[in-house]
């Protein structure tokens, strides 16, 4: 039991950057094809990472490096908790801790664009945090446990009891992974009103670490998506992977077809979707019980 946890955590730490990088490459390739372009090779994110690690690193405030490393470590820690089968509540809290580290890194450089990006990132956190908490509660109400280890050993997939939760979660995934229309704090697309927002003053090796942490984050979020479909039956993992890819494709499609919205609109929209989908789901679940 304990050995299998260690193996799973090591597998996550080793494989997540590869899967995350390939997912981002896929994202850029599919986005390019949607726009009628050829697009970069699928391994492009790895070239980017290699380049970033080989560039000169300009550090504006030395504490920035500490926060960025802490962001990476907390992200890996959160993912390890998740894939090690830990407590969902702890995962949600450590996830917000990692985001706070990134926000602190942006605030510490004292630049106007970084500060604006950090403020918007805080707003984005306000939008998706309720959903993450509701998700943990929903899983507890329907399956009777907060432990991921128990949640993947159920007889029927969680999505049957929690369809609203899945819709709400897919919606906040757009915010969490900073896809358009909710890429307010920092964007993968060029030319926005505040340079690069959150990552404006992060360069070279530090930027590489941020990218790496984002890959770990993407894989963990896909893991969350997969958890809706996983049962004790090993065959269900195939369905879970297919569902993850479907959600990821949907994210790319939304990213490429929607222009950015204002911060307050994102706030209102996300809370509305969370309340209507996840809230109603939770209510019905409680009534049925």
């Amino acid at each position, binding site marked *: 039991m304990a050995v299998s946890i260690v193996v799973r955590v090591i597998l996550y730490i080793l494989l997540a950057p590869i899967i995350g990088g390939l997912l981002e490459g896929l994202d850029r390739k599919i986005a390019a094809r949607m726009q009628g372009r050829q697009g970069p090779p699928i391994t492009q994110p790895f070239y980017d990472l290699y380049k970033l690690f080989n560039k*000169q690193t300009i550090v504006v405030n030395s504490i920035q490096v500490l926060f960025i490393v802490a962001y990476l470590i907390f992200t890996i820690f959160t993912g390890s908790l998740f894939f090690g089968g830990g407590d969902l509540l702890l995962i949600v809290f450590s996830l917000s801790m990692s985001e706070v580290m990134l926000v602190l890194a942006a605030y510490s450089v004292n630049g106007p664009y970084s500060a604006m990006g950090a403020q918007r990132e805080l707003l984005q956190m306000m939008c998706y945090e309720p959903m993450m908490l509701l998700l943990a509660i929903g899983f507890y109400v329907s399956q009777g446990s907060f432990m991921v280890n128990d949640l993947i050993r159920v007889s029927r997939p969680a999505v049957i009891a929690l369809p609203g939760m899945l819709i709400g979660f897919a919606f906040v995934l757009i915010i969490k992974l900073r896809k358009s229309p909710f890429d307010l704090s920092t964007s993968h697309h*060029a030319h926005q009103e505040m340079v690069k927002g959150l990552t404006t003053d992060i360069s070279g090796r530090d930027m590489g670490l941020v990218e790496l942490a984002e890959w770990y984050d993407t894989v963990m979020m896909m893991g969350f998506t997969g958890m809706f479909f996983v049962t004790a039956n090993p065959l269900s993992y195939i369905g879970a992977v297919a569902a993850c890819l479907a959600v990821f494709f949907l994210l790319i499609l939304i990213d490429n077809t929607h222009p950015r919205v204002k911060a307050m609109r994102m706030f209102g929209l996300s809370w509305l979707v969370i309340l209507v989908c996840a809230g109603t789901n939770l209510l019905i679940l409680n009534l049925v019980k």
Partner: protein
Amino acid sequence: MKVSQSPWILHYDGSSCNGCDIEVLASMMPHFDVERFGVINTGNPKHADILLLTGSINAQTAPVVRQLYKQMPDPKVVMACGICACDGGIFKDCYNVMGGVDKFIPVDIYVPGCAVRPEALIEGVKKAIAILDEKKEKMKIAMKQGYCTVDYGRLAVHTTAEDYDAQVQSDAEPTEETEETAGEEKAQ
């Protein structure tokens, strides 16, 4: 893997008729698509590898160009795109135009044309990324030798002692006085 496989571009317009800028954007569009080579048009000097400049430089944009160049981390390459960026072009004799980009920062690649053709731009980018690799190698050697690689006070990258040439205009930091005298000379 090479550094040159992921060149991120920072595009700045000194003061042009916008013809070149439209061609720069055209080269990012589906028909030419420079993202094939991993090129991303970033708006951030701290993430950029290639500084792509269009248009001649005037008194107001000169400090901006200098600052953008200073903010870019090494290794970096500067591309002057269009005849205006190369030497002032058709606006050379205007009272406000101070000349091409190379009067202020060291330029590695000159891409001629009025307006510059997307094909020429893409070839320029291909040449620029070759230089990027070269500079990376130089940086590595210089780091090993313990030689100071970057001298921001002089606005140029000196990877070896022979590289530094005080006579090169771009190596000298222009002050307000020198710029004033240059302007007066031109007026006469």
